[in-house]
């Protein structure tokens, strides 16, 4: 019984993704499954559209900057909590995770209010700020775990051998937490690149992300070009998961510190 449920679930989870990828190769002008004939015309339309490409560029840049900022902020916070053993360390860690217990629709409205107050609604800077807030809870755990595993004695040794603090940081501390950093970067990149529920409130005529564009196209049309764009998103995610698996191993997601 357990086995039967598990096997069905493990087939059910990838199903819609496989269907989207397969249906992107249709030659028909409308979306249907099974597809009517094989063609790459929807990929040609996607890659020939300046609009889709610029939206994809925005999403990639946003995810990249967001991942760098939230990983750096997480590393700094983890440094204070783990290395300096600050008194309210556990409380600080809990605080950093609080955005996770807010429903996304509510976060969306909170962010409208926030960005409107800053005059950043519908701007790229506004999206970067929001995506940093959303990805810090995911970025924090891997760097903090790596920092806990790294041996502070190595840093003390480097310092006692005369290395200046920055040199110690670059040559000793940073390499020791590298797997954690890479994980944080990739994890935040994926979360940010795929985020839609909060972002859809914050885009505007001058800035748009790929998942939000896909969302509004699905609501308005049934053009198979959406399937081609979605398949490209899937390809991006696969590449990230592949690198994550190589760097740290996929079991990272089910490990507890």
């Amino acid at each position, binding site marked *: 019984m357990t086995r039967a449920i598990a096997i069905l679930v493990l087939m*059910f989870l990838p199903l819609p993704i496989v269907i989207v990828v397969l249906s992107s190769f249709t030659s028909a002008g409308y979306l249907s499954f099974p597809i009517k004939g094989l063609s790459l015309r929807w990929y040609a339309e996607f890659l020939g559209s300046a609009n889709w490409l610029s939206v994809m560029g925005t999403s990639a840049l946003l995810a990249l900057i967001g991942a760098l900022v939230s990983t750096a902020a997480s590393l700094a916070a983890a440094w204070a909590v783990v290395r300096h053993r600050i008194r309210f360390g556990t409380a600080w860690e809990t605080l950093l995770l609080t955005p996770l217990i807010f429903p996304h629709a*509510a976060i969306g*409205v909170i962010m409208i209010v*926030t960005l409107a107050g800053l005059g950043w609604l519908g701007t790229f800077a506004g999206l970067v700020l929001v995506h940093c807030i959303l990805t810090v809870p995911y970025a924090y755990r891997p760097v903090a775990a790596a920092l806990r595993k790294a041996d502070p004695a190595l840093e003390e040794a480097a310092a006692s051998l005369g290395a200046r603090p920055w040199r110690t940081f670059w040559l000793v501390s940073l390499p020791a937490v590298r797997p954690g950093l890479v994980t944080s970067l990739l994890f935040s990149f994926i979360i940010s690149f795929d985020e839609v*529920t909060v972002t859809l409130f914050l885009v505007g005529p001058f800035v748009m992300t790929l998942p939000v564009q896909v*969302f509004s196209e699905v609501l308005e049309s049934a053009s198979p070009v959406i399937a081609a764009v979605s398949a490209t998103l899937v390809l991006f*995610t696969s590449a990230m998961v592949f690198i994550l698996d190589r760097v740290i191993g996929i079991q990272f997601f089910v490990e507890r510190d």
Partner: protein
Amino acid sequence: MPRPFRIALLLAPSALLMGVFAVGLVRLIASSMVIDGQIDLSLYSDILHRADYVAMLGRTLRIAALTTLVSVLIGFPTAYFVARYRGNRNFLLLLIIFPWLVSIVVRSYGWVVILGPRGLVNGIVTATGLADRPLKLMYNDFGVILGLVHVLLPFMIIAILSVLLQIPRSLEEASMSLGGRPAYSFRTVVLPLALPGVLTGITLVYLMSTGAIVTPLLLGGLGNTMIGTEIFQEVMHFFDYPKAAALATVLLATALAVVLPLQILERHLTRRLSDGGDL
């Protein structure tokens, strides 16, 4: 650099991000109940006195509860199977983690392709003559719950799996070698130890299903609103920000009312278990 200054500098970036979030939260609540400089709860009494809003709230809670229930019922066996699997467990993990990381837009869209009038299921049904007209599989509660379960199930499985993987298999075997039947060993050994993971999973799935917008909108349409889709409409179509802020505050309250007790219970259980005490 003196230590307090260095610590302040290290905490500054994350403090800034969380500070922005906290200020936004306060401003959200304020903008829903302060009108023209005075405290005014009329938006809330409007919401609670309109039959369609009350129905929408009830629908949201019902769908979230059903989604959570189905996710536990199929997520637990899956996590248990994966935790006890002796073969290539990494491959099974990939089947869970990879879909989890694919954007919810893509996954919900996949269900539109499968359940739609010209989709996979209706293709099979009409081709085999099981029905002469396409079945209505989406734009109803069934489609929404199916989509939400699919989107959120990985959270449940991951939460339970991360606890199950910590339970040594020998514990279960010890119970059985002492004469406990498998079902008894499962109920008295595995289940209590897995409970914190189950509670985390329930918390996440409930939370995310009450606050979902994309999946309910794509698979439920504009007719069958949930609180998330209602907020979306207020903002995107009616530009009624105070109403959206009031609805968002109601959403927060309903979510936290369930989530905070669960979190406290989960911490309590985890502490009890790590102290080695009885439940």
